[in-house]
């Protein structure tokens, strides 16, 4: 097999340092390993597996930007390199969470501070069921340390900001030291958060990723601008990953990808990794729990002489006295020097309006440091109705005590160092004019903890590691409990906050995970079958996922390969494959339009859905075309003809006078697939109106109302209560087109074991439904006089309908998607839907 080393993406930027190709169409990859996320963990896993002979696809949501793209401008770089353009918040908007989202992940935008995993933390994790021996930890840490070129900040590299903290620590006799950083010949520009223009920071992009894509022996493809949506699996074996290539500027999905792999590694970072697991109902009862942070609050010391803290390494010095690096076991905090470019600084200064301006004018006179607390795993990640991650976190009471203590220590240190006054982070007291205000600040923190401004760049936990499958998501090899080949390795697996800047610990865990996969490859993974699924990518076998340009080309290039008799349908020949969730419907050929998002296509798609049926009449082939939403049955006669442009095609001539100016050309490409074009005018030179496809097999996302009714009646049963508990996302059933996800149903059991359901419709309408389980179906009642009826098809798929009360008033009107049913008591409208446990 040909080896490949290439980075792919949607953005055409000139002068790339690495080999780069634009993604211009849907992609299907078949590889040994698929890694999700290219940050501190994903880059290392991908590197180590690719260099050991595995074929690897690495998927990254952000874009690929080289050092020379990084221009030290905050608005440019934050929107390019930071997740959510820096606007990731907890659900109460209290705490901002900084994470990277670009090739290299957070390692591109962090301050390059390196700490080995403290022994205290390792021991605690061991007590919590993580069985990684110290020898392995040490070897992995040493390997990482070497590969990212960690070195101690030299004394001459400490700027006045760092030196001020150093002097204050030494004066107090606190344990402290210069930091280790993964930087070679640092230029001390102070713009670490905006990516390193000088390429001195040894982030993942310039170390592990570069080595992987430049090694002729590796086989690695990296897809950027790719948002992972699905991990497919059955019976504890994951077989593939599906994602969207998303235009970062508009948010539009441009192309799709499906990666079939023997091993899948999720390294999307804390929060995103939990989000991916939850979206796919993987460990749904455990994933997202135990999220934690190192929340930090900052104090500025205002000195008489300019500190010029911007000029130099922002984070060069740390006070260890009260933290895990000094053996503190319960919580504790580090005091770390830090400084920020002016926009981030202004966002961080805790004041408003004219006060803010007054504080900002002293920008060069400030020394700055943060109290970074090691909190408990008290947060959660959950999903919003549209599948976004919702982070719920409030610092624990112990963390607030640590803040009170830490801010007191730091304020005293600034005053000791000669600060004229100190700017605090509490909204009740911004400015500490003298030492006597320290007590007031501490009191404010204690009495009004919500008033303290906090931020964090260290989200951790959510997919806890440990050997107990009832409480942990992954085992000590970072393999998801209950799966043979699905791994999660990144900060999300930390059982507790690590207590120090976490990047090296993440890298060490990734090293151990990659080593485990490499070492176990032959015995556990090599023989796993590779799926041949195509996901939602466009291909000849599933043209319903194609854009018009691709379908047009397929029609032009493809030859009609089946006899015309293949067209003939067999009414009544309908079947449903529960395992694959595929419908085979030979009553007619279901028509599909292209997936383009332009207005015309969307209008045609939703209002012009159709089927074509062919049969033998009087010994001759004949057909009917029927649009679902109109009482039209257009008779036609198919005939094989040789077209000057398209070669052998089926020419579909409409016989009715009202359709005489229309005709279709069809190419039958296999037993169940037809590509077609519709024309207006005189053949062979008519004007093409549209290109379409037709199929006799399609998955349940494309089901018609008739399909829905058959599945509801013949293939679905009333669910068991325990099986229905969880989060389900739904689509409305439309004859014409696949609809987007529009509703979320979350079933839970109350304290009495009774089922209840929370619904969100259209991301707007939310409420609770009363649930009644009968032997026939699940009934749900909301505040309207309509009700839901739901039946379960598989553990992950249900069908349902939302129906009006029966009435004797004739209901033969309205759009077709509002189906009319006859039931005891009269007729009723029903809006049909499907529900999937995995998005």
């Amino acid at each position: 097999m040909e080896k490949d080393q290439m980075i792919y993406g949607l953005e055409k930027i000139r002068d790339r340092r690495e080999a780069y190709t634009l993604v211009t169409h849907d992609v299907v990859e078949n590889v040994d390993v698929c890694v999700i996320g290219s940050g501190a963990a994903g880059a290392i896993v991908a590197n180590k597996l690719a260099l050991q002979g595995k074929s690897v696809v690495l998927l990254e949501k952000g874009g690929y930007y080289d050092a020379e793209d990084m221009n030290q401008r905050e608005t440019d770089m934050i929107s390019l390199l930071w997740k959510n353009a820096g606007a990731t918040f907890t659900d109460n908007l209290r705490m901002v969470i900084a994470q990277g989202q670009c090739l290299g992940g957070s390692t591109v935008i962090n301050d390059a501070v390196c700490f080995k995993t403290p022994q205290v933390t390792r021991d605690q994790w061991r007590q919590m069921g993580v069985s990684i021996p110290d020898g392995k930890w040490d070897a992995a840490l040493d390997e990482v340390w070497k590969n990212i070129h960690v070195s101690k900040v030299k004394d001459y590299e400490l700027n006045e900001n760092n030196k001020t903290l150093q002097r204050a620590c030494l004066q107090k006799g606190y344990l402290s030291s210069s930091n280790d950083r993964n930087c070679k010949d640092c230029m001390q520009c102070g713009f670490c958060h905006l990516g390193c223009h000088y390429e001195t920071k040894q982030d993942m992009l310039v170390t592990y990723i570069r080595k992987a894509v430049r090694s002729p022996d590796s086989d690695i493809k990296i897809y950027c601008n790719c948002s992972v949506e699905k991990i497919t699996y059955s019976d504890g074996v994951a077989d593939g990953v599906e994602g969207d290539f998303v235009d970062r500027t508009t948010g539009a999905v441009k192309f799709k990808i499906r990666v079939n792999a023997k091993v899948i590694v999720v390294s999307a970072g804390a929060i995103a990794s939990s989000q991916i697991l939850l979206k796919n109902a993987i460990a749904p009862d455990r994933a997202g729990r135990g999220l934690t942070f190192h929340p930090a609050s900052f104090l500025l010391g205002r000195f008489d002489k300019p500190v010029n803290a911007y000029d130099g390494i922002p984070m060069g010095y740390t006070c260890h006295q009260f933290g895990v690096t000094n053996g503190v076991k319960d919580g504790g905090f580090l005091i770390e020097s830090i400084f920020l470019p002016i926009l981030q600084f202004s966002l961080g200064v805790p004041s408003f309006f004219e006060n803010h301006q007054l504080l900002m004018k002293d920008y060069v006179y400030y020394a700055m440091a943060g109290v970074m607390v090691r909190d408990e795993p008290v947060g959660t990640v959950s999903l919003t109705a549209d599948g976004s991650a919702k982070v719920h976190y409030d610092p624990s009471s112990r963390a607030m005590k640590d803040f009170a203590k830490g801010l007191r220590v730091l304020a005293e240190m600034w005053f000791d160092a000669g600060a004229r006054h100190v700017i605090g982070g509490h909204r009740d007291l911004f400015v500490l004019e003298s030492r006597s205000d320290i007590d007031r600040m501490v009191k404010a923190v204690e009495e009004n903890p919500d008033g303290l401004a906090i931020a964090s760049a260290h989200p951790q936990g959510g997919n806890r590691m440990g050997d107990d499958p009832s409480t942990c998501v992954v085992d000590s090899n970072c393999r998801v409990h209950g799966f043979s080949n699905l791994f999660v390795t990144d900060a999300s697996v930390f059982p507790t906050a690590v207590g120090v800047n976490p990047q090296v610990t993440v890298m060490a865990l990734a090293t151990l995970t990659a080593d485990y996969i490499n070492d176990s490859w032959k015995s556990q993974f090599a023989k796993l079958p590779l799926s041949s699924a195509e996901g939602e990518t466009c291909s000849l076998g599933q043209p319903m996922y194609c854009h018009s340009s691709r379908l047009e080309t397929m029609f032009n290039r493809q030859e009609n390969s089946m006899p015309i008799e293949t067209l003939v349908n067999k009414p009544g020949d309908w079947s449903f494959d529960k395992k694959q969730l595929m419908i085979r419907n030979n009553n007619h050929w279901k028509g599909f339009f292209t997936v383009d998002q332009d207005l015309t296509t969307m209008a045609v798609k939703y209002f012009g859905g159709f089927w074509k049926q062919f049969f033998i009449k009087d010994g001759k082939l004949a057909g009917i075309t029927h649009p679902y939403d109109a009482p039209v049955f257009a008779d036609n006669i198919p005939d094989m003809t040789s077209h000057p442009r398209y070669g052998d095609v089926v020419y579909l001539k409409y016989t009715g006078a009202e359709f005489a100016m229309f005709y279709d050309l069809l190419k039958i490409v296999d037993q169940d697939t037809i590509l077609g074009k519709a024309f207006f005018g005189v053949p062979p030179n008519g004007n093409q109106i549209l290109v379409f496809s037709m199929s006799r097999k399609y998955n349940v996302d494309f089901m018609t109302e008739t399909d829905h009714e058959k599945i509801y009646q013949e293939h679905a049963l009333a669910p068991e209560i325990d099986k229905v508990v969880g989060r389900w996302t739904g689509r409305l059933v439309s004859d014409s087109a696949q609809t987007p996800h529009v509703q979320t149903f979350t079933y839970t059991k109350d304290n009495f074991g009774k089922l209840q359901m929370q619904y969100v419709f259209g991301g707007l309408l939310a409420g609770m439904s009363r649930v009644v389980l009968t032997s026939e179906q699940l009934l749900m009642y909301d505040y309207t006089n309509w009700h839901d009826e739901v039946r379960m098809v598989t553990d992950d798929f249900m069908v349902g309908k939302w129906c009006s009360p029966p009435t004797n008033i004739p209901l033969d009107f309205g759009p077709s998607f509002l189906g009319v049913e006859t039931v005891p008591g009269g007729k009723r409208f029903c809006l049909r839907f499907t529900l999937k446990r995995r998005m």
Partner: protein
Amino acid sequence: MADTYIAEGRILDEKRKPIKNLYVEAFDDDVGLGPFSSVFGNALSPNDYLGNAFTNKDGVFRIKFKTASFKGKYEVFEGQPDVYLVISDEYGVIKTTAVNNRPKNNRFEFKVTIKDESPFFDPYANSAQRLLTQFTATGQSADPALINPIWTGPLLIRSITSYLHYSDPRVAQLYGNPGPQVSARPKDSPDHEHIIPWRKTK
């Protein structure tokens, strides 16, 4: 064979390597009656279809066609065809060539180079739009019931004013920060030096 014409040529990529398996269609560029022309059949139709071929391993294609392909019954002024090619790979059209109306001995010769002529992505443009697009995630994940408006309201206003005021690096200079040490578009000056005035070395 005055009645037979040939459109032929070779298709190469930017590195002068031949591209195989491209689908080449040849058309005669005509003035027609727009969308109404097809009502009249192939009389007065625009852009007559001349033929198609796939490129071989050397990137070579050859399309033969006859006069009847481009000269309809009523096209009395049609002399010789104005040939252009539409070239597609398996994912869509990748190039439409310019018209060739200078045949030699009824042969229309094409030398085609396939280049990616799409514009470069500007990583610095639309920063504001990117910010707004990504801010939607914040809106999606916030829970209004948990937000303290007394704190969050002013914070939001402050954040917006900070973005408006401090985004311009020249503003940083007003506060004593020299601002960025590289140009706004570093790749426009590839020989730029990396100098930080305050950098300390041994």
